[in-house]
């Protein structure tokens, strides 16, 4: 379903938006649902993913990983591995160049180069179970694996620290002796696991809580969860004899890979070409490099053979991703009229082995939907003996919203208010101030609340025992970033579009649609392709929900430039000025002269130089995203199992370029949020060994676990984009865990404060509630 305050939605048989292109919404192409250009290759198995790269004389690389969560490396002996027939190269951290301790933005956020290097191959300590120690390249994967078993590593075991609160304790084992707490430029004076502290604060907390009629304070615990992309990390690198390096890899950001490889190996970027393959999911987890620099080292050491490295699922779960586990405490007060009077938040996010958790994002998300006068948020980035945290779809947002939206639900209960009415009273709108300071431009949060309020789901009776309905809202910043693209006019009127943003969620189509719209031609005439780092100017990663917005803006500009160039050429032919030529509905006209777009392209091809235009953008007008979700659940009180009966997600999508792909993003975000809410978690033993490093034991949702997910596309156009585009990919993962927790409470009367809300945890909570009820008063 689509709701646009300015336009009437076109609905299909099931009420879904079937597209408003073809001029019905004022656009010719935008709002329609054409086929994706990469669809045929993907459904027929011809698309080439990371592991499909096959080059002559390829060697196979494998990585030796730490069996311990925290240990000093006393010695590494690789001599037996090197002597094994078929082994061509063995590398350890000693083969990495020394890099200084320097924080640098490598297109994937700021990172200390020394940490990046140490995460590729451990230098003096291993910091998590699965930390790479050495790598082998051999003539077959089996020989490489055999060689790994011959590498001798002598460890001095150290006690691990496995959660943020333990790591913050005075006597906690220290991961990095040189780490000091940074508080906006002030460095602490003693070794610590707390990498940084941030704060947002305004108003008068004390007065705010004094004005409250109801105060709720709760604490929340969440475990690390993995992005769970289907395609494991895979990279092939060739360090050629002439010093030129080519890397084929499955990545969200080929330019970021180039930067990271260049910095960590101290090689100029001009010698590195990165070719992105098709990508089988990323969700933020395919931005950091894990294999690429190691494959480059092995290729050089093995005598300039290509080296191919493909992770298995065990490696993916142990050593890539995940996102942070967290401890969050929320205190919130409201008066009888339902106005929030004060909010105080403490959040400690596990960064994994190296600083860099998304606590800053979490701190921005946690109170973002609300208009608040008195607030304080303290966030801590804490290192623990787990893999280095990576971005994951609205990084830090789901666990933050789980905490705040659960507390809000409890406030509503205590006040006897409908949770959506409460949100309408407190919800942020244009001109209100975000919790972290800046003022919102045009946003559509309240529209998402109203859309759920008006949806038949919210008013439908929910009958039966142990059933409950919950709602929750979410926010995500979205991002702009840098994008570049090129368009060439072909003689038959088709337009070749070359872009540098890897296509994860259908962006070839959504970007080509914007070029087609800008040019006034059918979508099918645009031929998009994603290219390598030598073939287009710089592009930031496909992430942060930025690609359809920013690369789409580049496509819009390409269309305007290409049209202007065609007008100039036709003006030359028709001996007039470009301004005198009229262009409408794909037809150029001037007096008696008329040429359709295809005819004009042919004419231009015959009469002069080819037409090609390029553009680069770094847009500022990013529009943040809001969502409100409602879910019905049934809880089995005997087993604790949660069955989702119905799910509806309303989201401010700005303008849905390709509504099917927008809906797909919402479905995917909700599915991942449900997994995080109900099943997914990293399970460690006390020594820090990851116990569930397979998809059998790390339980992502399957189709059997999920209901049909209804979507409501609220279109509050972003004024910062010519077509009103906002990023849509991340915010849908923010509300689900909280919405589920609130539904579970209404179903069985227990407030869950731990993720995931697995059957065992729900049973324990039910039993605890029953035991409490039996206690004598």
């Amino acid at each position, binding site marked *: 379903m689509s709701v646009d305050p300015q336009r009437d939605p076109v609905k299909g048989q099931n009420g879904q938006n079937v597209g408003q292109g073809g001029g019905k919404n004022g656009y010719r192409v935008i709002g329609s649902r054409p086929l994706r250009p990469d669809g045929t290759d993907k459904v027929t198995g011809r698309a080439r993913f990371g592991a499909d790269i096959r080059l002559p004389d390829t060697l196979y690389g494998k990585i030796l990983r730490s069996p311990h969560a925290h240990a000093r490396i006393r010695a590494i002996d690789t001599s037996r591995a090197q002597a094994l027939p078929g082994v061509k190269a063995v590398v350890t951290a000693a083969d990495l160049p020394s890099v200084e301790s320097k*924080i640098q933005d490598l297109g994937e956020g700021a990172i200390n180069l020394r940490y990046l290097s140490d995460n590729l191959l451990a230098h003096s300590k291993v910091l998590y179970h699965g930390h790479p120690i050495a790598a082998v390249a051999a003539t077959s994967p089996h020989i490489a694996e055999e060689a790994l078993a011959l590498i001798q590593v002598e460890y001095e075991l150290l006690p691990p620290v496995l959660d943020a609160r333990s790591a913050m304790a005075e006597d906690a084992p220290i991961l990095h002796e040189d780490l000091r707490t940074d508080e906006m430029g002030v460095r602490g004076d003693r070794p610590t696991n707390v990498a940084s502290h941030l704060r947002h604060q305004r108003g008068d907390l004390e007065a705010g809580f004094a004005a409250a009629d109801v105060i709720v304070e709760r604490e929340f615990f969440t475990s690390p969860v993995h992005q769970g992309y289907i395609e494991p990390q895979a990279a092939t690198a060739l360090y050629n004899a002439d010093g030129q390096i080519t890397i084929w890899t499955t990545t969200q950001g080929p330019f970021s890979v180039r930067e990271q490889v260049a910095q960590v190996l101290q090689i100029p970027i001009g010698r590195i070409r990165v070719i992105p393959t098709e990508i089988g999911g990323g969700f933020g*987890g395919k931005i950091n490099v894990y294999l690429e620099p190691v494959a480059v080292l092995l290729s050089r050491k093995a005598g300039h053979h290509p080296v191919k490295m493909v992770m298995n699922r065990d490696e993916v779960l142990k050593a890539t991703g995940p996102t942070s586990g967290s401890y969050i405490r929320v205190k919130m007060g409201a008066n009888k009229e339902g106005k929030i009077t004060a909010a105080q938040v403490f959040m400690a996010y596990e960064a994994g082995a190296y600083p860099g958790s998304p606590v800053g994002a979490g701190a921005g998300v946690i109170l973002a939907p609300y208009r608040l006068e008195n607030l304080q948020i303290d966030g801590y980035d804490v290192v623990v003996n787990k893999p280095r945290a990576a*971005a994951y779809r609205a990084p830090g947002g789901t666990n933050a919203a789980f905490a705040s939206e659960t507390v809000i639900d409890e406030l509503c209960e205590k006040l006897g208010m409908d949770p959506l009415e409460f949100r309408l009273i407190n919800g942020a709108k244009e001109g209100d101030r975000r919790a972290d300071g800046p*003022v919102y431009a045009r946003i559509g949060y309240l529209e998402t609340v109203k859309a759920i309020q008006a949806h038949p789901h919210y008013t439908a009776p929910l009958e039966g025992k142990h059933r409950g309905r919950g709602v929750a809202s979410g926010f995500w910043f979205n991002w702009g970033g840098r994008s570049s693209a090129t368009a060439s006019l072909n003689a038959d009127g088709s337009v070749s579009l070359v872009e540098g943003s890897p296509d994860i969620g259908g962006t070839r189509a959504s970007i080509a649609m914007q070029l087609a719209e800008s040019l006034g031609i059918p979508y099918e005439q645009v031929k998009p392709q994603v290219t390598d780092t030598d073939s287009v100017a710089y592009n930031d990663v496909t992430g942060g929900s930025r690609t359809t917005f920013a690369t789409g803006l580049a496509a819009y500009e390409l269309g305007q430039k290409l049209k202007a160039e065609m007008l100039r050429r036709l003006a030359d032919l028709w001996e007039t000025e470009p301004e005198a030529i009229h262009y409408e509905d794909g037809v150029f006209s001037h007096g008696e002269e008329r040429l359709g777009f295809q005819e004009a392209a042919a004419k231009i091809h015959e009469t002069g130089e080819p037409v090609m235009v390029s553009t680069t953008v770094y847009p500022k*007008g990013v529009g943040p995203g809001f969502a409100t979700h409602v879910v019905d659940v049934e809880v089995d009180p005997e087993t604790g199992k949660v069955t989702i009966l119905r799910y509806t997600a309303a989201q401010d999508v700005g303008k849905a370029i390709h509504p099917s792909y927008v809906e797909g993003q919402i479905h995917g975000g909700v599915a991942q949020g449900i997994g995080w809410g109900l099943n997914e978690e990293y399970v460690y033993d006390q020594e820090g060994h990851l116990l569930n490093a397979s998809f059998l034991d790390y339980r992502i949702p399957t189709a059997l676990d999920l209901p049909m997910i209804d979507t409501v596309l609220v279109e509050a156009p972003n004024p910062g984009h010519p077509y009103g585009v906002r990023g849509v990919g991340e915010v849908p993962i923010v509300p689900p865990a909280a919405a589920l927790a609130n539904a579970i409470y209404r179903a069985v009367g227990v407030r869950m404060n731990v993720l995931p809300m697995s059957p065992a945890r729900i049973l324990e909570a039910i039993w605890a509630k029953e035991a409490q009820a039996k206690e004598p008063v």
Partner: protein
Amino acid sequence: MPTVWIPPLLRELTGGQERVTVPGRTVGEVIQALEERFPGIQERLCQGNRLRPGITVTVDGVLGAKGLREAVSPESEVHFVPAIGGG
């Protein structure tokens, strides 16, 4: 003059002031003006000739792409906020 919201962890340098007005046509000039009034604040916000890693600036609610060279108007509102990465 532009209004600068002082990050809470830097308010010890501004005597607790939450926001101040200082002259400047760019973020860099604004920070220099802050430094003149509140010595030490520049070092907390900048590393060399750029904003510290992990810090970004918004001018009138819009994330700046140019860092210290970002333009500000006399009516502008300037915030220093954590740099956020997406997924």
